[in-house]
């Protein structure tokens, strides 16, 4: 049986790549309590969801946005009643550390002018969750039209961060967690929570789960102890 | 008749062909450059398919309407006009290539004997590309003889050898012709060679 060894090596968690550090810390804390250490596989939410829908045997899925979790749910692959929101996040405007720029992301703010001839680094707004939130926020603030053709859409939010770190883009929009983790960028401003749909990382047990530990680990992740770990990495409560 | 050949093959506009019968012994093929001597040997060896005709040698049919033996079943020993040694094998491995594949009962000679009368004993460890023209030619002769063939096809095998070496090798060819009674098809432009070796002369190209 393919997952016979899974019991000893802990449940298999498929998690969005942006949770890399925080979830690793949480898993370590869980293992310290004497449990088998969960196996963590980090990739883009889309790749992971496709693997689940192709019948891959895993225990827990943590997505970076709702649509992919919805897709898995629609395919009937979630264990009913186990879907919950793990953490939330905020969207921030960043600039290279050395930048002097001051700019509050409020209605009609002068984003296009601040960019000058440069481009705004974002995760791909047509594809990647962070990009979609960014697009929603800029639209709500009425500046999307000014900057839509001045974007540098990156493969994922970390790649957008790197563009700003390297000075390739004077400004970027990333999650607060990314900005906090980087030494090379400065937060210029935080987007109003109301300007975009709530940023939530949903998690759920999978139908294919064979691991007895999986449900307990899920509960741990939603516990106060784990919340504290995620908060340390800059995540908000969902 | 040890040899009965009647073949034809078209190349573009021209037709190559030959029709002759011959007794066992050495049949010298004669004719101007480009008339089709090499092509004829290729057909006998099974490397070139005649458009029509038959090839019978020593009682065996190598090719006719119904038969087309693959080259390895024809048991010819072919000394090519251009040597054609295996570049990735040393001289010794070239010489032994056919010898290893031959039925031990049929073998005519040992590596040492061949190396001796061809004067190539000192070349056994060399790569073919490093040989001189005449050295390569002698290795090619040795390789064909060591394969213990039932017919010998020799395409100007002595053309770049000096008189002394030529004499030695002709003596061996005579022995093969007379003692082993192997039929030989022999292409040469050298009058002296043909006079000494041939039991029969065939003019190729009608």
């Amino acid at each position, binding site marked *: 049986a393919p997952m016979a060894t899974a019991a000893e090596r802990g449940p298999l968690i498929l998690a969005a*790549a*942006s949770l890399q550090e925080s979830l690793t810390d949480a898993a370590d804390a869980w293992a310290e309590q004497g449990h088998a250490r969960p*196996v963590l596989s980090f990739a883009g939410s889309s790749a992971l969801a496709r693997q689940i829908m192709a*019948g891959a045997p895993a225990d827990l899925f943590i997505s970076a946005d709702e649509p992919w979790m919805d897709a898995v749910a629609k395919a009937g692959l979630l264990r009913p009643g186990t879907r919950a929101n793990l953490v939330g996040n905020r969207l921030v405007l960043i600039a290279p550390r050395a930048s002097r720029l001051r700019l509050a992301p409020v209605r009609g703010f002068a984003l296009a002018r601040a960019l000058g001839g440069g481009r705004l680094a974002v995760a791909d707004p047509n594809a990647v969750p962070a990009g979609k939130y960014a697009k929603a926020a800029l639209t709500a603030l009425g500046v999307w039209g000014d900057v839509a053709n001045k974007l540098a859409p990156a493969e994922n939010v970390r790649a957008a961060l790197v563009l700003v770190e390297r000075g390739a883009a004077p400004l970027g929009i990333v999650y607060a967690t990314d900005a906090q983790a980087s*030494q*090379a960028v400065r937060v210029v401003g935080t987007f109003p929570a109301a300007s975009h749909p709530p940023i939530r990382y949903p998690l759920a047990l999978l139908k294919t789960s064979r691991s007895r530990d999986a449900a307990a680990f899920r509960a741990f992740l939603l516990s106060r102890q784990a919340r504290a770990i995620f908060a340390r990495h800059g995540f908000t409560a969902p | 008749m040890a040899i009965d050949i009647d073949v034809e093959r078209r190349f573009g506009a021209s037709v190559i062909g030959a029709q002759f019968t011959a007794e066992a012994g050495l049949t010298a093929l004669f004719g101007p450059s480009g008339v089709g001597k090499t092509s004829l040997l290729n057909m006998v060896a099974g490397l070139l398919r005649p458009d029509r005709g038959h090839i019978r040698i020593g009682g065996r049919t190598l090719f006719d309407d119904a038969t087309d033996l*693959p080259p390895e079943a024809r048991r010819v020993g072919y000394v090519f006009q251009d040597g054609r040694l295996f570049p*990735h094998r040393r001289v010794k491995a070239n010489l032994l290539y056919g010898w290893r594949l031959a039925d031990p009962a049929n073998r005519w000679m040992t590596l040492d004997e061949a190396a001796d009368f061809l004067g190539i004993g000192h070349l056994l460890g060399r790569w073919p590309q490093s040989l001189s023209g005449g050295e390569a030619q002698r290795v090619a002769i040795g390789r064909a003889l060591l394969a213990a063939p039932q017919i010998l096809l020799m395409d100007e095998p002595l053309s770049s050898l000096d008189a002394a070496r030529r004499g030695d090798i002709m003596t061996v060819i005579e022995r093969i012709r007379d003692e082993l009674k192997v039929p030989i098809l022999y292409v040469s432009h050298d009058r002296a060679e043909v006079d000494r070796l041939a039991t029969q002369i065939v003019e190729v190209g009608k």
Partner: protein
Amino acid sequence: MLSAEEWGIVALSLKVGGVAVLATLPLAFALAWVLARYRFPGRLLLDALVHLPLVLPPVVTGWLLLVAFGPLGPIGSRLQDWLGVTLMFRWTGAALAAAIMALPLMVRAMRLSIEGIDRRLEGAARTLGAGRWHAFRTVSLPLALPGVLAALVLGFARSIGEFGATITFVSNIPGETQTLPLAIYSALQVPGAEAMVTRLALLSVALSLGALILSEWLVRRTHAERARHGD
């Protein structure tokens, strides 16, 4: 020098790359042979199919693998039912992905060498009593050796660098499918982990440098100055 975890990643990459390349070699050679030697209807199609993994973005190749070899896929489900073999989330799946990505490079290299073989030498071998297969083994194959070695190097290097198809197909599971490029990806997700990325990238480079040195040594050994001086 290396942590146990890094050793594990290197060992896995070697295993995946080595198995991928060696297992693909016969198939790749056969394809190269057929493409070099035969003209038949559908030849161009076969050629295009072989090039496919080069042309498609790796993520698409991974997705196609997932669709075909996943537990619900037409091939994957049969492998599972009939042979009890799963590729999903296994290092064997990673090797399959690497193999498919390396295939076009390996086929091309060997095809170039096969096309360069002097076929008259095969004829010479036949007249010396070698059957088709023996002539192939003793003449054609050794003469195609430069292409085979190039294919091994290219294929191995490509396997060592394979990322997109692998993560899409078999995910990023430490100890099972997390090869060097996937570990690098994970490290890249952590801002400020450039040192770790550099370290892992250098490991990749070291691996392929090893393969390169090995192949150069083999070439030198087999081609040991066969040529005639000053010609």
